[in-house]
């Protein structure tokens, strides 16, 4: 094994160390300060009272679970939208890739507030697609909004995932072994971009979990607006919430790293996945 490939060793990493320490300080200080403040609910002592308070609050758990569900739905919808599209483009329409990629980057260019403003105007009462007229429809619109927000990240993750495995040749190999297109997608393509999907999924989750603009403008009881509300009404709980939000996102990212870096055959946790895939295979054949 050759170590540090592509990274010639600097003889004096002093400068590097100071840059990195400075950055680390900038990143960690606010977290520490928030944490410290969140412990100050009881005057003159450090306690987890704020956290206790939160976990005893229905609205905390309700809004968090609402957002979690919305995020999961967004992940599901995003996956179903992006994976087949990317696969198809790479396989059959390589010339369309530029356009599709550009489209997927649009949400980075158009501010979310503009997008949601458009939704409220376009899909209100009397529209052919009245998505703002009931709770369920608003929920749906929120999920769609999250899919849009996460589109650039989801697309990128899946696209690079597919680029890494030479989708065309794998498809042909499976075809020459008699597999149908559906079968190829299920047992060759999906498992091999699984880590990419998972990566995209956690990005989606971390974007939408604490999202404020869309949820607030659509009046959804989500975690983001709850955070803002708490910030207005309480002093110490919001700091605890900030820390919790950070930890939740962090856990998501850690999970993502875990999945994304894991190679096939290194079965630690995902026996579940593999098992499910084989079952599906059996159903198909």
């Amino acid at each position, binding site marked *: 094994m050759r170590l540090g490939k592509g990274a010639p060793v600097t003889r004096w990493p002093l400068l590097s*160390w100071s840059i990195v320490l400075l950055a680390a300080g900038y990143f960690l200080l606010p977290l520490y300060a928030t944490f410290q403040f969140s412990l100050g609910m009881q005057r003159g002592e450090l306690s987890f009272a704020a956290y206790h308070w939160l976990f005893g609050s229905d609205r905390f758990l309700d809004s968090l679970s609402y957002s979690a569900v919305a995020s999961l739905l967004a992940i599901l919808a995003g996956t179903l939208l992006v994976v087949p599209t990317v696969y198809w483009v790479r396989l059959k329409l390589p010339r369309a890739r530029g356009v599709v990629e550009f489209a997927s980057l*649009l949400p980075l260019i*158009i501010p979310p*507030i503009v997008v949601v403003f458009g*939704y409220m105007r376009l899909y209100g009462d009397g529209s052919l697609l009245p998505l703002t007229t009931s709770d369920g429809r608003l929920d749906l619109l929120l999920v769609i909004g999250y899919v849009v927000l996460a589109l650039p990240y989801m697309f990128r993750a899946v696209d690079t995932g597919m680029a890494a495995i030479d989708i065309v040749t794998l498809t042909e190999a499976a075809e020459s072994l008699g597999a149908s297109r559906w079968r190829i997608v299920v047992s060759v393509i999906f498992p091999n971009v699984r880590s990419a999907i998972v990566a995209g999924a956690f990005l989606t989750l971390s974007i939408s979990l604490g999202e404020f603009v869309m949820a607030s403008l659509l009046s959804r009881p989500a975690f983001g607006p709850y955070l803002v509300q708490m910030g207005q009404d309480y002093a110490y709980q919001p700091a605890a919430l900030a820390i919790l939000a950070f930890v939740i996102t962090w856990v998501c*990212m850690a999970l993502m790293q875990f999945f994304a870096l894991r190679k096939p055959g290194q079965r630690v946790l995902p026996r579940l996945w593999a098992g499910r895939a084989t079952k599906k295979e059996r159903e198909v054949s």
Partner: protein
Amino acid sequence: MGSPLWRWLGLLPFALFVLLFLVLPVLYLVQGAFQTPQGQFTFDNLRALASPTIASAYSLSIRLSLVSAGLGALGGLLVCYALVHGGLPSWLRHAFTTFSGVASNFAGVPLAFAFIATLGRLGLVTVLLRDLFGINLYASGFSLFSFWGLALTYLYFQLPLMLLIITPAMQGLKREWQEAAESLGASRAQYWRRVALPVLTPSVLSCFMLLFANAFGTLATVVALTGANFPVVPILLFQQIRGNVLYNPNLGFALALGMVAIMVVTNLLYFVLRARAERWQR
């Protein structure tokens, strides 16, 4: 050469989604920007954008986005250099990457809380500076709720975002390039100036672009930090949508159109710059 038509059908779901939930809303806004509340054609809304308060909001937004994107890009580049080429242990790079994944999405409300706890009036750093060094930040004119305070806050998600997206490009610098340059007599600085930076330029440009867009559309952080007292464009738009006494939806459309227009212009600029920077690429 055209692919058979049915192949394009495979794109239908995606195209439909993009059309319905990205393109149409924007087009609707464009149309609305040219109408009075009664539906007549007018330029008044656009003209209103030039009113001093709105124009200054745009200017503030643009400046804030430029500054935070510029600082983020520069800082991110430095940190990335240190991590990838600085001879530091590799676990540091992994730690920063995971952290960046979190922090780049740590915008909005919690971020505002965190900075208030750090640099607010009774923030950790403020108090430490006061008690240990006798520096009174707020007396010396600093405020977290000012332009620079906000820029500093934005940096918290801009820097990691830069770090995340520039790292692959930085890793793409081949060790052989540096060695070839060195064997040709170049010092490290010469290598960076003549080879590494030119090679990185297109990536840096696209990252900067992304950071700019990211900052330009940010609302939650400002709302959580200052309420609605810091007049960046998204705040104005937010107020229009939220429906306050100044409510005028068509002005809202115009504001949104202005935001989109600025993003389009920046993008065009970016494409030109990028094309020039990467004429040596496919």
